[in-house]
């Protein structure tokens, strides 16, 4: 006769961020000790703690490991083409100005193939929150060199070490016109969450870089241990310097990581500039796009839609 084991009680409490996730897509595809999940948790927590109508929040990702974030968030979610998350998000925002649009993608996607879109969206102060998870490497394709790979770090396409200087992303964003710029590591979960909340409440082009461990590729190729060792490295080497000069926060190989909020300015956004300018130059003739979008029919006029559906069936 077998022994009846006492069964573990099923979890009665839902994970606090479950309502923000597509739980039917969990488990996710990220590797053990990957940092992206932590960033998602901080973002979801911040959304929950902010007073935003989640029905009006869209999330847009490009391609890559972080490019999968949109796919796990229970929001209007767009998994787009490589590098084009920012222009796609620009269309969403301008097409329905009442939306709050977040771009969530990786370093290769946003500043490698998508670099041109990044600098122009920052320049025009496009109303987007851009979250960039920087793991120093192309993860999804197997560890190739990134525009953020620190000098001398090994990647699969720089097997003798990287000799190309990397981007200093807060400096890039700030110099192009970003109105909010911060950097954290995956270790700084409370500070990162606070930063997300702050950025959600701001307007314009807001940029948050999050340094995240990739133990499968970056750490393995550079013999840096596991995700735990990288978190320990962040613990020992991250330096919080709010208001630091963004031009001085570049990241060297296994060198200190300056974190903090570097820019927080109130400046008119692209939409505000546009509206103010047209009001000034065109006066009463200016008809701004409706916050719900340039619909030429009322979506609630169901009669119309029935007619359309019926006429299509008749064809």
């Amino acid at each position, binding site marked *: 006769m077998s022994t009846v084991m006492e069964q573990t009680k099923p979890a009665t409490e839902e994970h606090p961020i479950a309502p923000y996730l*597509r739980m*039917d*897509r969990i488990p996710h595809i990220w590797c053990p000790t990957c940092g992206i999940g932590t960033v998602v948790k901080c973002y979801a927590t911040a959304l929950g703690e902010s007073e935003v109508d*989640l*029905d*009006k929040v*869209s999330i*847009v990702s490009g391609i890559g490991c972080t490019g999968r974030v*949109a*796919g796990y968030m*229970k*929001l*209007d*979610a*767009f*998994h*787009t*083409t490589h*590098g*084009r998350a*920012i*222009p*796609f*998000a*620009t*269309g*969403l925002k*301008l*097409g*329905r100005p*009442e*939306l709050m649009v977040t771009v969530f993608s990786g370093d290769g996607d946003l500043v490698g193939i998508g670099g*041109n*879109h990044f600098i*122009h969206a920052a320049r025009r102060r496009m109303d987007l929150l851009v979250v960039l998870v920087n793991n120093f490497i192309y993860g999804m394709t197997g560890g190739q060199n990134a525009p953020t790979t620190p000098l001398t770090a090994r990647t699969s396409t720089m097997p003798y070490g990287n000799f190309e200087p990397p981007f200093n992303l807060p400096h890039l964003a700030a110099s192009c016109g970003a109105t909010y710029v911060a950097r954290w590591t995956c270790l700084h979960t409370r500070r990162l969450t606070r930063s997300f909340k702050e950025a959600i409440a701001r307007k314009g082009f807001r940029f948050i870089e999050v340094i995240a461990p990739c133990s499968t590729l970056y750490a393995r190729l550079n013999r840096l241990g596991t995700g735990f060792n990288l978190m320990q490295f962040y613990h020992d080497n991250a330096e919080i310097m709010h208001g630091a000069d963004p031009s001085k926060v570049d990241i060297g190989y296994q060198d200190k990581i300056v974190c903090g909020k570097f820019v927080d300015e109130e400046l008119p956004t692209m939409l505000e500039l*546009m509206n103010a300018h*047209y009001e000034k130059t*065109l006066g009463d*003739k*200016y*008809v*701004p*796009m*409706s916050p*719900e*979008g*340039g*619909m*030429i*029919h009322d*979506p609630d006029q*169901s009669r*119309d*839609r029935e*007619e*359309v*559906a019926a*006429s*299509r069936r008749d*064809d």
Partner: protein
Amino acid sequence: MKTDPAGVLTGTHYLDGDFACGEGAMAAGCRFVAGYPITPSTEVVERISRRFPMIGGTFIQMEDELASMAAVVGASWTGTKSLTVTSGPGFSLMMENIGLGAMMETPCVVVNVQRGGPSTGLPTMTGQADMMQARWGSHGDYELIAMSPQSPQEAFDLMIDAFNLSEIYRVPVMFMTDECVGHMTEKVVIPPAEEIEIVPRILTRTPPEDYLPYRANGNDVPEFARAGDGYRFHTTGLTHDERGYPVMSAECQEKCVHRLINKIKNNADKIVRFEEEETDGADVVLVTYGITARVAQMGAQLARERGVKVGMIRLIVVWPFPEKRIRELADKINAFVVPEINYGQIVLEVERCAGGKAGAILVPHGGGGVHDPNDILDAIMGAVK
């Protein structure tokens, strides 16, 4: 339903084809345009950027054509009808997100005012050499719709049709005009708004908890949910199931891509548009489109003066191709003559459909101008020998 009068500049105008395109888009209810300057298409967005602030539309000049096309696909997901405008080199860059538009089933219109190519080619002079690119330019298997107007008036009228088809089938529509049509100025009559019939995409009325973004429910086209309406849907450029979730399998690929193709193929009879003249009893039938159709008229007339029975099919919708009609005619005629400003693109399709039953004779032109009608005449005379 009738269009929004705000965008309709009712009256009789003297407009070039590019301006007429822009007016057509605004009359069709387009309220978002993203573009990047490129000759000979720029006048379209110049017209729109001047008028949009007065009619509730937003124009943005993006940093390149990759961004323009991505923004157009993004904006369309809010329900706002969206357009971009370009020419050959920009069209090449747009291919990436035209594929995304096809995969996500996003209604939008892409104007290509064709110029001579390849590469930078002849920026200020005409061409028709992007016709195959319009059909096959993005990677992978998909179907879309391409149209080709022959005059400014038709550029206006057809643009409304282009938006309607893109909304009905949730597909990017390629509006393949050319430098000649784009820059020729003619009379354009814009009717009153109440005479402009528009067909918007079907917005779903399924409650969000039951809604599946890619369930077609026995129809060919799934119902649309706009971003911001509480559906919290997911869409992706990856192969996806009815939920819009990525599924990496041959079975899912088959279902997903098959429907993308079938929604156009199965409805080709409703989408195909062409004009036909004097094909009854014809020995030779010209198959033409765009500006070349007007030049070919002269060639046909010269041949008729010489006693040859010449018919003509003018393609208004080029893709999907009117296969059925070309097959029927192939049984009855001697040969098709296909003048086009390229070294043989649509002629390949004519040849395929003719299946050896009738000849398919190309009258090529490298671009930078239109055909000499005598070259078309010579081809016709050669065909009846």
